């Protein structure tokens, strides 16, 4: 705060006081992404790039360690070691280098996030200190950190899951991992964006990467269609969002969310402009997290995009989008709660019901999961509408539980998708419980988690948002959520029934479970169970994450 004021006064040059530690994970990822770019360019002369880069990174790591930053230094050193080692380890399989390195760096980012947390927050109890860095653009607070956890965890899970799949479909490209890392960086920046400009650029960064990733399967018309649809609609939505932001700037004279919050509280604020802006921002953000009626792209894009991209989109984009929604609404529009809470509640209600209902009549598993993700956006919106610290932490928590679950679910789809190349009809699952009980079991676990049946992560998530909703007096909304859950359970049950209650077709192809996939799947399943049964630690984190830097 003081930093911000000083910066505005022009007394402190923020450039010289850059707090690198507040975006250390992003630095790491961007560095790795750039390195991977170089590696791609280097083609056969990988060692020529890798060794200097590794040495450089190692030197940075050692410097960090010697200057007392033990953990981040260790992470950097480890990544540096990987940078040097991996090109030699996978000389014949260059694609594996980038996959491994990306996954490792995401893991490293996760560790760095933990380090950030430990440095600046107390893990077990008490709200941490929230602050704004970089002149007020980068929030260093609970939401930002928790979003990092969710996004990076998603990346850690999604990269091994996706690698084999892309290879199998013949659409793996070295740029894929770079795009995913950079997109993840965009997402975390969105989660930490404290002013509208940063937010807008972050939105565009992650969106552009996703457009490209959605269209990765160039020979698959569905993938192309998904990409172009996503892009066109995303562009329109961005424009609407941008216009909304501009209107807020008109109304308050500032692009900083905290300042907007104050500006909107003034009696002199032009209310009409503010409300106009609020409406358009809602449209734009609603589009990003797929709230009805701005959801229309979701089923098509989720179905058409390569499945691992869908998983990443469903899990991480939602997390980032909701993180910004939380910041924007709870902080920025904190004075206008009377206006937006009912609207958001209604949107949440429609979203939940529509997502669950329309999924009933789908026959493509990816599409079913897409519609279910709609319903889940609705549940998360309950937390936002509930507001307060409860709503804040419950939404974050919900998004994490949803992320680990949905990646697992899509990983199972990937395993089954093997030969169908981009589509998995419900009937393809017939008898999976017999053919491949372990896979069917894990899929069931994921589905139960999506349905919110204890003792899974999904239940804990739903519990949290419902609890926030009830304590905020939105009982009706929670009841709608309940109804939607029941309807949704119906189609989850249909999938389960297909797997366990039907006989397998004789010539059904074996599911394809690559090493990476099984790793990711196992990790996701473990996370689902652990978060479901013993959520205490991470739930405490989510609770502590209920801080907003202003």
């Amino acid at each position, binding site marked *: 705060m003081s930093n911000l004021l000083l*910066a505005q006064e022009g007394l402190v040059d923020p450039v010289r006081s850059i707090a690198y530690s507040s975006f250390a994970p992003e630095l790491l990822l961007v560095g790795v992404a*750039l390195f991977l770019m170089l590696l791609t360019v280097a083609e056969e002369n990988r060692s020529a790039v890798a060794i200097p880069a590794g040495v450089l990174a190692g030197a940075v790591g050692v410097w960090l360690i010697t200057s007392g930053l033990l953990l981040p230094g260790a992470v950097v050193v480890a990544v540096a070691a990987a940078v040097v080692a991996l090109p030699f380890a996978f000389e014949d399989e260059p694609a594996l280098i980038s996959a491994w390195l990306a996954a490792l760096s995401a893991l490293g980012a996760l560790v760095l996030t933990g380090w950030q947390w430990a440095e600046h927050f107390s893990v077990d109890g008490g709200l941490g200190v929230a602050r704004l860095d970089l*002149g007020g*653009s980068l929030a260093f607070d609970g939401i930002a950190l928790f979003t990092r956890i969710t996004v990076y965890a998603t990346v850690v899970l999604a990269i091994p899951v996706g690698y084999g799949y892309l290879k199998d479909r013949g659409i793996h*490209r070295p740029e894929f991992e770079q795009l995913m890392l950079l997109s993840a960086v965009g997402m975390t920046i969105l989660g930490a964006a404290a002013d509208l400009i940063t937010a807008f650029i972050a939105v565009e960064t992650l969106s552009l990467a996703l457009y490209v990733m959605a269209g990765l399967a160039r020979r698959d018309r569905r993938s192309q269609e998904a990409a172009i649809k996503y892009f066109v609609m995303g562009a329109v939505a961005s424009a609407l969002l941008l216009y909304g932001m501009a209107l807020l700037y008109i109304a308050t004279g500032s692009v900083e969310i905290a300042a907007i919050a104050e500006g909107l509280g003034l009696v002199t604020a*032009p209310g009409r402009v503010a409300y106009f802006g609020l409406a358009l921002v809602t449209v734009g953000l609603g589009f990003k997290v797929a709230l009805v009626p701005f959801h229309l792209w979701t089923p098509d894009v989720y179905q058409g995009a390569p499945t691992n991209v869908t998983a990443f989109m469903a899990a991480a984009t939602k997390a980032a989008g909701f993180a910004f929604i939380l910041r924007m609404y709870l902080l920025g529009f904190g004075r206008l709660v009377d206006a937006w809470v009912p609207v958001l509640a209604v949107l949440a209600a429609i979203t939940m019901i529509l997502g669950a209902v329309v999924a009933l009549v789908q026959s493509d598993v990816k599409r079913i999961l897409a519609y279910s993700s709609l319903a889940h956006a609705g549940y998360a919106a309950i937390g936002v509408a509930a507001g307060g610290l409860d709503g804040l932490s419950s939404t974050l928590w919900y998004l994490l539980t949803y992320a680990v679950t949905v990646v697992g679910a899509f990983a199972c789809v990937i395993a089954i998708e093997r030969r169908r190349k981009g589509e998995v009809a419900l*009937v393809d699952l017939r008898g999976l419980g017999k053919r491949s009980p372990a896979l069917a079991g894990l899929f069931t676990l994921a589905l139960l988690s999506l349905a919110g049946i204890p003792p899974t992560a999904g239940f804990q998530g739903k519990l949290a948002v419902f609890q926030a909703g009830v304590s905020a007096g939105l009982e009706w909304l929670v009841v709608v959520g309940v109804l939607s859950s029941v309807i949704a359970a*119906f189609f989850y049950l249909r999938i389960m*029934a297909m797997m366990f209650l039907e006989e397998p077709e004789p010539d059904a192809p074996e599911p394809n479970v690559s090493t990476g996939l099984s790793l990711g799947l196992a990790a996701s399943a473990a996370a689902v169970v652990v978060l479901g049964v013993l959520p205490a630690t991470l739930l405490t984190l989510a609770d502590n994450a209920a801080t907003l830097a202003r």
Partner: protein
Amino acid sequence: MTFLAQAGADGAATASALPEQILFWVMAVIGIGAGLAMVSMRNIVHSALMLVINFAAIAVLYLALQSSFLGIVQIIVYAGAIMILFLFVIMLLGVDRDDLLVEIRPAHRVGAALVALVIVAASVFSFVGAMTSEESRCGALAPATVSAESIPCVGLDDQLEENDGPVGLLARRLFTRYTWPFEISALLLVVATIGAIVLGRRRDPADEAARRALEPEPEPTGPPDLPPSAEPSPEVS
């Protein structure tokens, strides 16, 4: 251009509103007209040209708004780079393809017009009064009481003076307060570059290898998610 910029920049300072008014109305009409033309013209190249005109009009309006640097950037980047890119693609794909407009059903036009009207009405509702009164004239004396009904226009004169002109003004802000967005906009450009590479590369080795290894991608003829026979009927019925 320089003159206009100067006029715009100084207009407020000298409180001579007339040039700005003329400038505004002319450019507004041109911009809106070009926009309308762009939307409704059949020939895609014509549309693109209309857009260029619109961009130019907007650039002029930037000048009037004491943002001459932006006006120049607008001309260079938009009209100069982006629109060229558009035209390039149009040429690449063939120019005779815009016969699609005729297929639009009138209902769509009416609907679109209604949407547009609502947005315009909302903006009129929002701005008229609060920002169209005389107090909102930039450079005018600040009213005694600031209220939501009339927002004064502060103007950028002080800022421009303090920062040695529009470029300095923008640069100061950009490289101090907005370092972080500046950095991540670099990221954005990297992403765009990678994306363009991925999308633009005609053929890559991995692709080829995969194609050799596997049978060709299936080309479903009908919508794959709606097999007519497999239409599911929910169990509870």
